[in-house]
């Protein structure tokens, strides 16, 4: 008589895979929040290394200025053309400046800037930190008594949080100017009337909303970029760096879109900004 055998636990069933996936996702979210909390804590702890912050401000801000200006300018031009063409059948094409400026300030300025920087800066942060992890440079920092979060994450987090709103201001002006160039040169729109309309419909509250959004997007880009860089396994190698970098760009974009929806809901729906 053969002894009874117990059925082994399934390791490839759908329920098992889903449970595993859920567990991993929740663990990752928990780790990301732990890193975020430590970053905030380390921001307020001396010593403060302003030279590291300046280096990141320069890298993130100055080096991204051209691409942000070009992106903003052409977004404004597209809005100008679309706005004019769509409003003309209803004989309200005179409102095109209002359409461009409100769209750019409240939504597209911070959004386009965040998209550009998530691809350019977020991915670069992940690539740099994950390479440091794989080549044991982060371990070397630890062994030399330097906190990697304070040394590597804090300057990048602060620089992104400062430069995103700063670049958004440039991007917004470029967008409004792009709209001006498009409608004035292509449709013969009155330039003075465009500027007057922009002045009439550009409220300080709108700029405030734009800057809140931009700062939040900057924090998200840095947090995702740094977390993905730190979360790679030391044995990940070049493939791990590539996967982490791609993952960082994708998660940043999704985070920005979700955050944008949440901020729109809070600012416009719950707090009543217009």
């Amino acid at each position, binding site marked *: 008589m053969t002894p009874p055998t117990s059925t082994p636990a399934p390791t490839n069933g759908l329920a098992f895979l889903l449970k595993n996936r859920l567990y991993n996702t929740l663990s990752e979210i928990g780790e990301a929040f732990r890193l975020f909390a430590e970053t905030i804590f380390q921001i307020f702890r001396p010593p403060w290394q302003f030279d590291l912050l300046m280096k990141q401000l320069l890298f993130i801000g100055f080096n991204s200025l051209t691409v942000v200006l070009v992106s903003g300018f052409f977004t404004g031009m597209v809005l100008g053309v679309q706005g004019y063409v769509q409003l003309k059948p209803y004989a309200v094409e005179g409102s095109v400046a209002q359409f461009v400026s409100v769209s750019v300030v409240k939504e597209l300025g911070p959004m386009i800037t965040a998209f550009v920087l998530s691809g350019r800066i977020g991915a670069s942060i992940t690539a740099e930190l994950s390479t*440091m992890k794989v080549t044991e440079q982060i371990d*070397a920092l630890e062994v030399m*008594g330097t906190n990697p979060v304070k040394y590597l994450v804090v300057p990048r987090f602060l620089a992104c949080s400062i430069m995103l709103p700063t670049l958004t201001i440039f991007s917004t002006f470029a967008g409004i100017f792009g709209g001006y160039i498009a409608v004035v040169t292509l449709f013969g729109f009155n330039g003075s009337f465009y500027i007057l309309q922009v002045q009439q419909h550009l409220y300080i509250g709108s700029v405030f909303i734009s800057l809140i959004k931009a700062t939040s997007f900057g924090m998200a880009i840095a947090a995702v970029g740094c977390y993905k860089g730190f979360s790679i396994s030391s044995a990940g190698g070049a493939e791990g760096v590539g996967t982490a970098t791609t993952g960082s760009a994708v998660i940043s974009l999704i985070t920005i879109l979700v955050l944008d929806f949440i901020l729109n809901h809070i600012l416009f729906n719950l707090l009543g900004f217009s």
Partner: protein
Amino acid sequence: MISIKNVRKSFGEKNVLNGIDLEVPLGETLVILGRSGCGKSVLLKIIAGLLSIDGGEVWVDGTEITKLKRKKMNQIRQKIGMLFQSAALFDSMSVAENIAFMLDQHTDLTQQEMRKVVDEKLKLVDLDGVQELRPAQLSGGMRKRVGLARALAFNPEIILYDEPTTGLDPVTCNEINELIRDLNKKLQVTSVVVTHDMHSAFSVGTLMVMLHEGKKLAYGTPDSMINEDNPILQQFILFGAPDQILNIDDPTLRKYTGRKTE
């Protein structure tokens, strides 16, 4: 100086260290031997405080380090220098900035004073004129030397070496081995060397430990390890140790090699 008591460490379901006990007395150089994946580097990283443990105690210079807060641990780390397998030099910094990093972070030394220390440490590892080069411009052997100079910058009492000769040609390996031996003698430091290069192990070690399947298989001086009657250890030594240190007339060795006295 370093005392490891019943240390256990696992990654997921894989037990890497399964109750390791070890002592490294002051001024000795302990070589940790073992096959790839047996937990040698994990043990080294535990001593450096880079990895937490699942159970046991790790004492460094009279302090139990596994439960220390980061601030206290950083004070202990100032007594430790570590040479990483890949040297782990900071790509974005020059050689001089790499070596001066710890001084810059933890002391109030002026640039001139730091420069002096950098020159002095580079001289100790037989390098000069590379201060302004970037790590990418250095050869493998030079990177290891710079890594060692960086490990020495804070005058550590303990130096940890993670596979110091891996990836180097035989001549450079020999140079690095001599350098480690000379430094240990000159600076009177306590060292732990992880390697599976037997030439290196017998060249620098005053004590040896062999890890196998998460446990301590053998521990003792190089001579006692050669005479240890353990087939796994003997195979490990015989496949890698230089002939000049092996006495093939030794009955234990003859048993495992099958070699006969000429």
